């Protein structure tokens, strides 16, 4: 049987023990942090670029789709093997290959967790800046494929601004190098094109990232508001005052309450919203910057602004923010994370409308988000066992994304399109835009084997020209 031949071929590359095909095992790989499920035909553990190339070649022989999988924390169905085939489990390629402080670069295998890289660099006095809130369980490969952001991206940019090179196993099994240690590689910026391609351009097997010195000083503030509007106005006021803090994060009351229940970081349960604001850099003006921000927050209606006195207090604030998605999960059997983005000044307007959408569909929608980036994460709570409710959730989600687009924004800031937002792509892209993206896909993957069935909506019905 063709199926057996495929499994046999995979085993020849990586050995018996590294190929899973029993139903129990396959079931573990049929879902990720999004809401859909689809079972793969096999799961393969890989340990080197050559093994990945071997596996991809076997997939080519058998016309089998393949899906690279990192931590499985993506929120858009990116790792769901939509057309079956082979899940390539990257998690064992998790070594830090080289830290080159003289050249301010590190070479990393893609299965390494974002936080592990941070932990390895910190003792040397360095850091890798993009820091998704999921950094404990998200891999560098997943970060690259999703072009992930994080709380510190307002000042420092997202993954694409910090990845300078990579080794890629192309969808036909060939190995190619993009970018590298030296800047401005000749030819098209394939590194830049690959980042954010959601596993549809091949498998990244090595990443070269930019590292920078840890900041000399950091100050973290918590501004507490009785009005969500005043809180979101403050975000723009800080920027208008000519300041670019490292982070500008926001959580609303429902999220704060959930976080307090699970993490106990001392957030007031009765406030409408909090802003977590951090400034970093040379220590000489951090006091002055902090004072200026505290003043601005108060002018814009903050009832209290706390400044973290030490690392422990700062860590606690961040534990609250980073634990927010997890904490909300305790409130509800499931939730849909929206990821719309708007120009920053539209935040107050869009938050108000999100609340209206919640009322209209009778759904609870807590908000936790990267306010500085204008990147919302309304979390629409529901019970997956209730099909009628789920249908309402999907409608509400779509409406929120449409709102973001209407206000000059887009349908995804950092979580990717995957399976989730294929149908919303037409909110922002024209048919010509979609066709042009498909040209790039065809150039990378003419046989459509790399994570097929994602990102692009089905072609629109075209009336036949007689």
């Amino acid at each position, binding site marked *: 049987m063709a199926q057996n031949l495929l499994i046999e071929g995979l085993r020849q590359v990586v050995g018996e023990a590294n190929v899973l095909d029993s139903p129990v095992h396959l079931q573990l790989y049929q879902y990720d942090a999004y809401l859909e499920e689809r079972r793969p035909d096999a799961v393969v553990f890989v340990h080197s670029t050559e093994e990945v190339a071997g596996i991809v070649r076997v997939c080519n022989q058998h016309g089998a789709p393949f899906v690279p999988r990192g931590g499985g924390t993506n929120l858009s169905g990116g790792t769901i093997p939509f057309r079956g085939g082979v899940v390539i489990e990257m998690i064992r390629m998790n070594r830090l290959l080289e830290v080159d402080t003289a050249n301010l670069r590190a070479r990393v295998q893609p299965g390494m967790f974002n936080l592990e890289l941070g932990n390895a660099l910190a003792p040397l006095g360095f850091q890798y800046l993009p820091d998704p809130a999921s950094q404990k369980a998200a891999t560098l490969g997943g970060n690259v494929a999703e072009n992930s952001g994080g709380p510190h991206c307002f000042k420092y940019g997202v993954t694409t601004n910090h990845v300078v090179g990579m080794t890629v196993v192309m969808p036909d099994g060939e190995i*190619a190098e993009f970018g590298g240690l030296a800047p401005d590689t000749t030819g098209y*910026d394939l590194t*830049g094109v690959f980042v954010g391609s959601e596993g549809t351009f091949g498998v990244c097997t090595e990443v070269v990232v930019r590292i920078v010195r840890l900041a000399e000083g950091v100050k973290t503030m918590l501004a507490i508001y009785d009005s969500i509007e005043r809180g979101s106005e403050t975000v723009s006021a800080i*920027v208008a005052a000519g300041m670019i803090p490292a982070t500008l994060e926001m959580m609303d009351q429902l999220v704060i309450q959930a976080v307090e229940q699970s993490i106990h970081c001392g957030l007031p349960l009765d406030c409408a919203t909090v802003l977590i604001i951090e400034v970093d*850099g*040379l220590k000489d003006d951090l006091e002055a910057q902090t004072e200026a921000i505290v003043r601005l927050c108060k002018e814009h209606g903050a009832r209290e602004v706390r400044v973290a006195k030490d690392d422990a207090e700062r860590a606690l604030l961040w534990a609250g923010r980073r634990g927010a998605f997890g904490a909300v999960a305790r409130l509800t059997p499931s939730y849909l994370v929206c990821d719309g983005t708007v120009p920053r000044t539209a935040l107050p307007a869009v938050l108000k409308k999100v609340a209206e959408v919640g009322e209209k569909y009778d759904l609870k929608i807590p908000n936790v988000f990267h306010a500085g980036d204008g990147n919302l994460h309304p979390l629409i709570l529901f019970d997956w066992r209730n099909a009628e409710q789920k249908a309402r959730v999907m409608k509400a989600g779509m409406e929120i994304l449409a709102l973001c687009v209407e206000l000059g*924004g887009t*349908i995804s800031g950092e979580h990717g399109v995957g399976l989730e937002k294929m149908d919303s792509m037409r909110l922002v892209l024209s048919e010509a835009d979609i066709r042009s993206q498909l040209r790039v896909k065809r*150039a990378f993957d003419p046989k459509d084997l790399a994570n097929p069935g994602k990102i692009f909506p089905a072609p629109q019905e075209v009336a036949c020209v007689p």
Partner: protein
Amino acid sequence: MSHDLASLRRQLEDLVGNSHVDAGPETTAAFAVDGMIPALTVRPGTQDEVAAVVAACAASGAALVPWGGGTAMGMGNCPVRVDVVVHLDRLNRVVEFDPDNLCVTVEAGMPLARLQEMIAEKKLLLPLDPPDGARVTVGGLVAANLSGPRRLLHGTARDWVLGIRVVLPDGERIRCGGRVIKNVSGYDMNKLFIRSFGTLGIITEVTVKLLPMPAAQASVLGLFPDLSGAAATAEKVLASFLLPEALELLDPCALDILAPALGRSAPGNFALAAGFTGSRETVERQVRDLETLISERGGTVRLFREVDSVRIWDAVTNAFGALPQDPLRVLCMVAVPIARTAGMMASARAGATGSGLTAATLAHAGSGILWAAFFPAAGLPEDEAVSRMVTTLLALREEAATVGGSLVIQEASPRLKERVDAWGKPGSSFAIMRRIKTEFDPQGLCSPGRFLGGI
């Protein structure tokens, strides 16, 4: 002019108006690319006109080259064909300026300097500083990913572009990205067109994010009797907490060019120039720290504040524009891992000396970028001069390649380009680049031959 081009000319005149189409070498010669004079130049006035012009060229099989400010037209290999130059100077409007959200959208032909002037009124800036900013257009800046000293702290166009609109080689108009600072709605198509040198279409509109102007700025220049003192100081700065915006190494020839701006010359010296911006407190602190580092390594310090600092950076950024004109001179950019920058500067100088050429070199010490200009000695016969240039460039390229770097020719005579490829050999990723080009420009009509590997 061939029959086809004559009919294309009439079509273009219909599309954009007679007065915006030129034919005949007396007018089109100013738009020669590596000596190849286009049959036609056309100046579309809107983005839709660009689309119509490109579609007309595609239909008649005419090869086109987009032209912004013309500052980077010396880059790349000699084109295979240039039938039509599409000059974008009339596409110079502001589409939307949104100071509150720190972003602006302009048409591609807008000169960078004019954009900077406009946003400065709102105390904003775009921290991209290619040479010749007065002539560089925003579209050209993006298409060639041009950069300057400030890339150390701020990166390049790829870090500042939020969205672009492009006319594809078949005349179809598309939008990439948008105007929000985070955007993963599909592939990051911006990256495909940034630094594609007009080989995948014509960029017609650009949205960039902006920065608030800093409260203070100052520059410190350290003069050293040799390169090693300057380089060692640069290394120390990079390993410290300091966050200079720019950190430049200048050799004596480059320093000479700057003498008028510096107010005096310092013959024989190498220099390390650092630019600091930020709050008054951080700028003062960094100036002090760097002064100490320079003195510790035997250098002499010169300090420039505020307007003087601006003047110095203008001069450094445009240093090579002030070099003597010489039809045989070659300008190239070498990119290497950061720690190799000073070493490459030494090699470039030694290579020049060894071949009896003069070199002026300047490096972005914290970015791994070396700019080198080579001149033949006076009276050297042309053949001999070209041969020596070739030898020097190839040796330098070889050395850069051993550390994973590249040497790209920025400007050279067509005669030299016949003997040295402007980009060097393509690597393992070239197959995919070719396929991308074929997907977008199957007829090979957009800037044919100028890019890597004959693309």
